[in-house]
Structures are given as structure tokens and as C-alpha cells.
């Protein structure tokens, strides 16, 4: 293999790692930008970000009894399953969709400050983590009311959350750049996410597709949701889903870093 080709790949991976390291060091910026964006969205409302929790609760309150009847499941079990699935899906979907538009949406800041590009992805991811934790209150409440137990295994949901966040960030290093250059991709992603909501076991149970496990385990969105949902509702650490996420992450990381390193300097030109 040509030595220049390898040097080029390694250089681009280093550019990407350098950008990510700088962004992590600028935590005070993306942290405060994320918080200010949430505050700004709920400005002049009496309840502020509590609306995040209330609107999710209203949706789950309407869907839970109806779909438990449709699927013939016990309301308590189904509500917890739906609440976890829906909340983690909402986090995944909005992170992907918003990170895809992160550079265009932050164009003014991007063209006024010399911040590393991945800072805008971290800001968007963190903003969605804040929203997730507002909704997580519903999950904790449901666990206490329905399961009445909270054990050490349930805490391992954080492993799933960290791995899933890294996986989303990893793929969005590429997708966000493509979405900035080709604006149709954002619309395509929006449509795919709508379809995937129905194809992923969120409102329907995995048991319904026992004989077609490939449709479940072949779906990366199931892996993300299961890595966080299983510890909380079944009190078990989903070793295979976490392992699969880690493997996908490790296998794809060199390519995503290379791509990001190669094209990141084009971002300001493509945001217009």
C-alpha cells in the first residue's frame, strides 16, 4: 500500500482527534450553549423545561392504556416497557436529527468564533441528554410505582447510555457533514426515523417476533434502546447488545474519524 495514502489517512484521523480533544476541553462552552438553548426554548413559559416531562407524560398516558389493550398486555408491565422505549427512542431520534442540522443551525456562532467543529455536536448531544433526564423522571416514578425495586443492575443502564451516546456521536461525525453539504439528507433521515419508530420494538414487544430475531438484533436502534431499557425493566445487564454496540463503535471509529478529519474544514463553506 502506498505510504502517502497511509500517511494521509493517519493525518486526517489526527485532525479529527485533535478537534474532538479541543471540544472536550471547551466543556464550559458547549455545556452553557446547550443549557441556554433549552432555557431559550421555554422562555416566557411558567413551567419552563418541566413542559418536557409533562408533554411526554401526557403522550404516554394516552398511548399506554390504548396499546396495552390492543396488544393484550398488562397495563403496568406495558406502561414501563413503553415509557422506557419511547423516552430512549426520543433521545436517539432527536439527537440524530438535530446533530444532522447542528452546523446549519449554529451557523452564526460557527462563523463568528473559531470553535472546533465537534463542539456543535457535543452541544446538541448534551442538550438531548438534558431532555432525556427531564423525561427520565417518568421512568423512575414508574419503576417505583410498578416494580417497587431499584437495584444495582438498574444502574448499569448508564453503561448503555454512554455506549449509545458514543455510537450516535460516532456516526454523526459523518452524517452531520453530509447533511450540511446535501440538505436533502436531513429530510431523508427524518423519514427514515419515522419508519424506524414502527420497525423498532418500542410500542410492540420483542416476544412478538421471537422467530425473526434477525429483524430485532439487526436493527441498530433496537441495540441502542435495549442497552438502556433492559437493565431498568428486566433488572438484567444486556451483555450482547452492549457488546454489539462496542464492536460497531470500534469497527467504525477509524473510518468516521478519517472522514471527519478530511472534510471538517469544508463545514463553514457548506453552512450557507
Amino acid at each position, binding site marked *: 500500500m502506498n505510504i502517502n495514502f497511509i500517511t494521509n489517512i493517519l493525518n486526517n484521523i489526527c485532525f479529527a482527534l485533535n478537534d474532538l480533544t479541543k471540544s472536550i476541553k471547551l466543556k464550559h462552552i458547549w455545556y452553557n*450553549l446547550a443549557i*441556554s438553548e433549552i432555557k431559550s426554548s421555554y422562555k416566557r413559559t411558567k413551567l419552563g423545561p418541566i413542559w418536557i416531562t409533562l408533554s411526554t407524560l401526557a403522550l404516554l398516558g394516552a398511548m399506554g392504556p390504548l396499546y396495552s389493550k390492543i396488544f393484550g398486555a398488562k397495563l403496568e408491565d406495558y406502561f414501563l416497557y413503553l415509557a422506557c422505549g419511547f423516552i430512549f427512542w426520543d433521545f436517539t431520534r432527536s439527537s440524530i436529527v438535530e446533530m444532522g442540522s447542528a452546523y446549519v443551525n449554529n451557523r452564526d456562532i*460557527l*462563523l463568528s468564533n*473559531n470553535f472546533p467543529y465537534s463542539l456543535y455536536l457535543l452541544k446538541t448531544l448534551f442538550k438531548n441528554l438534558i431532555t432525556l433526564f427531564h423525561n427520565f423522571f417518568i421512568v423512575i416514578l414508574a419503576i417505583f410505582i410498578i416494580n417497587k425495586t431499584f437495584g444495582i443492575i438498574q444502574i448499569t443502564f448508564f453503561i448503555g447510555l454512554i455506549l449509545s451516546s458514543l455510537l450516535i456521536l460516532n456516526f454523526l461525525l459523518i452524517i452531520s457533514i453530509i447533511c450540511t453539504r446535501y440538505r436533502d439528507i436531513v429530510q431523508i433521515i427524518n423519514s427514515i426515523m419515522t419508519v424506524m419508530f414502527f420497525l423498532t420494538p418500542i410500542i410492540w414487544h420483542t416476544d412478538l417476533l421471537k422467530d425473526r430475531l434477525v429483524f430485532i438484533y439487526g436493527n441498530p436502534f433496537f441495540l441502542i434502546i435495549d442497552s438502556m431499557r433492559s437493565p431498568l425493566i428486566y433488572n438484567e445487564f444486556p451483555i450482547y447488545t452492549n457488546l454489539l454496540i462496542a464492536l460497531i463503535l470500534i469497527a467504525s471509529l477509524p473510518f468516521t474519524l478519517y472522514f471527519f478529519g478530511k472534510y471538517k474544514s469544508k463545514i463553514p463553506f457548506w453552512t450557507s
Partner: protein
Amino acid sequence: MIKVEIKNVSLRYPIYGFNDYSIRNVTINTLVGGKLLQKNKDLFIEALRDINFVAIDGDRIGLYGHNGSGKTTLLRVIIGILKPTDGKIVTDGKISSMLSLNMGIDLSFTARELIKLKSKFMNLSLEKEKRLMDDVIEFTELNQYIDLPLYTFSTGMMMRLSFAIATHDRADILVLDEWLSAGDEKFSIKAHDRMKAFIKKSGLLFLATHDKNLLANTCNKIITLEKGEIKGVERT
């Protein structure tokens, strides 16, 4: 040593969604804006072309030119926001810049919230944040407007606020774009004094404006840009 060295810098902006732009339009040169170029089916604006200069500690460089002559693009290249298509730029020193009046922040924020957010960006301690707040409130004379949303501000008021924040702390290299033109006379004198004091503390200033008097009073070197090219360098 505080320094900005620009060697053979050119920059071309790709323009998307206008591929059917006619050759006739491309070849006719207009008075404003960079040159339009068409390569195959792609359209580009040549925002900067073969820029060369060295600015060192103590220099106050003024950038002068029509709208679209390349002043802001050159400032963005100096700050590091835009990477040149060709050429090289070497900067040595901490940069403080103000390119847009609201600094890219949501206009529903109050001025006080904006100052707090900027202090968080700068990672200031609570004590330094308070000092920044007091300094900005005193300098801008915004009084009760400090707690009103930014969308209620005039351009001049926004300029006062942004200028006060940018010039609060020492920086090696200060980069200002089209600023003092929006202020009233009293504020212009005040801002000029503050800028002089700031320049004494800072190493190097880049100021882009249409105001030749301001450049003559502030800068020791005026670079005139036209269609992305340096048309002249004048020492004052």
C-alpha cells in the same frame, strides 16, 4: 512574539444550488463582491486572491474596501474560522474577535444573560464575571435595557454591548469588523478612547471598516481590498 503572517492566501467559496448560473453573468464583473468563477458546472466566489502581508506586535492594521471586497473573509481567515484554499497563514497570540453584533446568540436573551454567557465562554471566575458585568454596564450606559431582550436593541446599542465585551480583557490580537460606524458621536469618542487604551494593552489590531477617518485615526497601516485582492497598502 505576537504575529500574523499571511503568505499567498487565496480563498474560493463554493456556491450551491445555482449551477444554471449563466456564463454571461459570470463574466460580467460587478462593482461589489468577489469575482465569480465557474469551473465545469460548479460556481465559486473568489473571495480572496493572493494575499500577502506580515503584521507584528504594535501594528494596527485597517482593512478598507467596498461591500464584498473580502474584508470580513480575510478577518475570518486570520481568526482561523475559514481555511484558505491556497496559501498559508501563521498566527501567534491569543485572539479576541467580534465579527457579528449578537455574537451568534439568540436575540431573546437579555443583555445581562448575554454577558453572563460570554463570561462562561471565556471561563471567567464569578469575581471576574462580576467585573465584566460592571464594566460593560458602565461603559455601554444601557441602564434599564440591560435586562431587556436583545431584539429590543438598536444596531447602535448592540454595537455598544458587543464592543464593550470584546474590549474588556487583554488580548494579543484584537479583530473587529465594521463596528464603530453604527454608534452616535458621543459614543464614537468614548469607544475610540477605550480602543486606544485596549490597543496599549494588546499587541495587534485588525479593524475592518468603510470609515476612512476612523482608520486614519486608529491604524498605522491601511490595506485596501478590491474584489479580494490587495490594491494598496498605506502607512499613516
